[in-house]
């Protein structure tokens, strides 16, 4: 950028800037200008303004807090949020220290109930918080450390710079808690490898939008990047190249990075379909397809007729259960094509011996039930795609069913919840299906409880996930494709059902989007417009 000589041009320029900015000076009704996202349960803003200075303001702990100075989650969060609030304001350096009769000197954080500092977030984590912003000391109270993280994000969204560059916040009072406990993003690292950098950036963006589950669809037909310690040949033979792998260190890094943001990592090892890459490193695992009397050379789903299959799955899931600390494992179970099974004579023999006759659905169920039991014996709970339920496989009442097929999905939700199972909704939120225009509106308008059912049934909807399947997505385009479209899903899953105004959402989301860009997330535009600080490639 060229150096500008001060003088007439400089003075005129500054005046023009101030005039432009003054015209947008925030007033009493600052809520849309703040761009709170997702909208908290209850927000009371007073017109009284408080000023913060980067030199004098601090995030601190209440001495009575159950989570103390040794709490790494909080220490990391304080550092991170201080940076989000003050760190990126490079161009318009406000006065660092100044006299004001309405300073905000501190945000004091207090964890009221269980520390959970060294624990992993779970489906039952308490993410509620209460934020009272009053000079000179604001207070953030939460039952658990997870609520503090959510509250810090909201606090950081309340702070803005006035036209003179002074960090400002309205006196306010916020209480907040999520509508749904499971708010996830699905990433697919098999169709395309995603760099760890991309995954960590995604976790950062998720935290800004109060998402709390990273559903890691880690392997599939096309490649097997997960480096298994028990079965190293799986990735040796199944990954795209030796550098397209996730080592145990990589996986640990993702899990800890997520934990510090209150995000669960839900691994999915999808079977018996979607497993072509598994066969490269584990001979005899997949079903050989036959061309008449002889093997054709092609392979199909995992072979459900062999004991060796279940020995393998048992040892494999024993490792997976140790590597991934979350209570749940997603075992897939979707889109099983019986074509290959139909050609294989050993499968035919096996089915006859079991009395399945020609019903391949029964064969599928046989496999699924055995794997679910394997997972249960590892003291993990299971999540499955809807086919497992649709095929009437015998599943535990606590098994979560993820509804992904778009046609008549509310009816599917009704069926699943009527049968007593918890549900995750993804069907209307396949973000890989890009279209021209503001499709975030369609995602925003989805009502996860728009199906006929009892109160009890509706309570079984645990939340949902925005899915970004990887056929056409990798590190070059993932971030702009996910954000801010997924933000629409994020608010639908966090905020109250009455938060529906699309126009208000547009006003807030454009501000929130610019905030993500400022923080280094390449969130794409919603529509025509600009951000004060555009993305630096």
């Amino acid at each position, binding site marked *: 950028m060229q150096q500008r000589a001060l003088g007439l041009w400089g003075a005129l320029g500054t005046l023009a800037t101030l005039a432009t900015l003054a015209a947008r000076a925030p007033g009493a009704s600052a809520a849309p200008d703040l761009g709170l996202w997702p909208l908290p349960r209850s927000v009371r803003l007073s017109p009284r303004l408080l000023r913060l200075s980067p030199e004098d303001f601090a995030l601190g702990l209440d001495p009575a807090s159950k989570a103390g100075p040794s709490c790494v989650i909080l220490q990391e969060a304080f550092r991170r949020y201080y940076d989000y609030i003050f760190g990126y304001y490079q161009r318009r350096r406000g006065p660092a220290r100044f006299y004001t009769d309405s300073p905000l000197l501190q945000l004091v954080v207090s964890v009221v109930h269980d520390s959970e500092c060294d624990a992993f977030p779970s489906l039952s984590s308490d993410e509620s918080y209460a934020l009272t912003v009053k000079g000179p000391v604001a207070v953030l109270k939460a039952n658990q450390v997870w609520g503090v993280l959510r509250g810090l994000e909201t606090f950081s969204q309340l702070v803005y710079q006035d036209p003179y560059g002074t960090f400002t916040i309205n006196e306010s009072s916020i209480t907040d808690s999520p509508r749904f406990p499971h708010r996830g993003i699905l990433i697919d690292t098999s169709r*395309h490898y995603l760099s760890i950098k991309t995954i960590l950036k995604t976790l950062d963006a998720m935290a800004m939008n109060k998402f709390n589950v990273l559903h890691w669809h880690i392997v599939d037909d096309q490649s097997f990047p997960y480096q298994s310690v028990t079965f190293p040949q799986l990735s040796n033979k199944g990954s795209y190249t030796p550098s397209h792998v996730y080592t145990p260190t990589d996986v640990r890094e993702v899990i800890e990075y997520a934990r510090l943001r209150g995000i669960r990592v839900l691994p999915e090892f999808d079977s018996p379909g979607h497993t072509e890459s598994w066969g490269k490193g584990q001979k005899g695992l997949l079903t050989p397809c036959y061309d008449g009397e002889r093997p054709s050379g092609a392979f199909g789903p995992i072979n459900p007729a062999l004991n060796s299959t279940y020995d393998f799955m048992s040892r494999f899931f024993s490792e997976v259960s140790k590597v991934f600390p979350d209570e749940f494992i997603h075992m897939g179970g979707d889109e099983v094509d019986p074509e290959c099974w139909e050609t294989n004579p050993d499968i035919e023999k096996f089915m006859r011996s079991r009395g399945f006759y020609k019903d391949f659905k029964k064969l599928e169920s046989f496999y699924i039930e055995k794997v679910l039991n394997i997972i249960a014996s590892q003291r993990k709970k299971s999540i499955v795609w809807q086919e497992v339920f649709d095929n009437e496989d015998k599943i535990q009442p606590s098994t979560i069913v993820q509804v992904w097929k778009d046609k008549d999905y509310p009816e599917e939700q009704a069926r699943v919840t009527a049968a007593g199972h918890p549900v995750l909704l993804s069907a209307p939120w396949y973000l890989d*299906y890009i*279209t021209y225009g503001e499709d975030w509106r369609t995602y925003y308008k989805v009502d996860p409880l728009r199906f006929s059912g009892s109160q009890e049934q509706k309570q079984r909807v645990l939340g949902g996930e925005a899915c970004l399947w990887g056929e*056409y997505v990798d590190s070059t385009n993932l971030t702009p494709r996910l954000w801010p479209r997924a933000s629409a899903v994020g608010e639908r899953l966090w905020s109250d059902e009455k938060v529906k105004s699309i126009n208000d959402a547009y006003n807030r989301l454009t501000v929130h989007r610019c905030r993500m860009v400022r923080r280094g997330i390449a969130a794409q535009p919603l529509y025509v417009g600009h951000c004060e600080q555009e993305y630096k490639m």
Partner: protein
Amino acid sequence: MAYNKLNVLHWHVVDDPSFPYESLTFPQLTRKGAYNPITHVYTTQDVKDVIEYARLRGIRVLAEFDTPGHTQSWGPGVPGLLTSCYSGSQPSGTFGPVNPILNSTYEFMDTFFLEVSAAFPDFYLHLGGDEVDFTCWKSNPDIQAFMKKTGFGDDFRRLESFYIQELLDIVSTYDKGYVVWQEVFDNKVKIQPDTIVQVWREEVPVPYLKELELITAAGLRALLSAPWYLNRISYGPDWQAAYKVEPLAFEGTAEQKALVIGGEACMWGEYVDSTNLVPRLWPRASAVAERLWSASQVADLDFASSRLARFRCELLRRGVQAEPIGVGYCNEEFDHW
């Protein structure tokens, strides 16, 4: 672009929402029209930098200053330039296209295009002329009077014609050639035979191949963009649809076909900025690039697919954030260290 042998950057620099071009003869245009006159501006030096960077790569910079429509952002900086729309007998407070009946308009254009002609060394300037909404002109009593006086009656295309002709005359005096959007041709504006017409509408008023036929039959040169609006994204490998386009698949003589001098992939900016432009443009624009460079017989999709996948990895290796066209991998992935 250079890696793809594309050789024209058509810079649609200003439009309704903002005016980021730093004008030295009319600084108010920038001051009042830019999103932010300090941060969201292309200074004279910026423009020079782009032109030289392009020149070193054998790329022409074709600047477009679209008028008389698409000019909302010009209004605040040049009061009286845009037509005042009327609600009955009173001004409604809103403004429409450039006012074609005032001498001041042409004085302004004269000075402004003198500056632009000097700032952009390419022989051609793109003068726009698309999507002129006649509603505001119709509502304005001064314009109504003008229409009666000149005998244009109710045909506002004749008024548009009048404006464009004046504009073309102005620009010709600066020894520039011009490119216009197809409406200028469709509305039967009297244009010089050396005008280049850019076809952007897929079906209206006729399918784009038919439009090419009509333009070239009139002896004018044409540029094709209609099937190459890359801002219109959809799920899947849509580069194939771009690749399958054959710009010369219309009824015409060899001389006519020679008048189709090429085309442009367009990346309109409603939903595009630095966060997503590069992956949205590449490698989809590469399909257009091959269609415009290589022989027409080079049309096999499978052959193109395997080459494009490898080429995309090469683009990545050279630091271009080109998105994937299908399942797979590159040895050196983006952002992977």
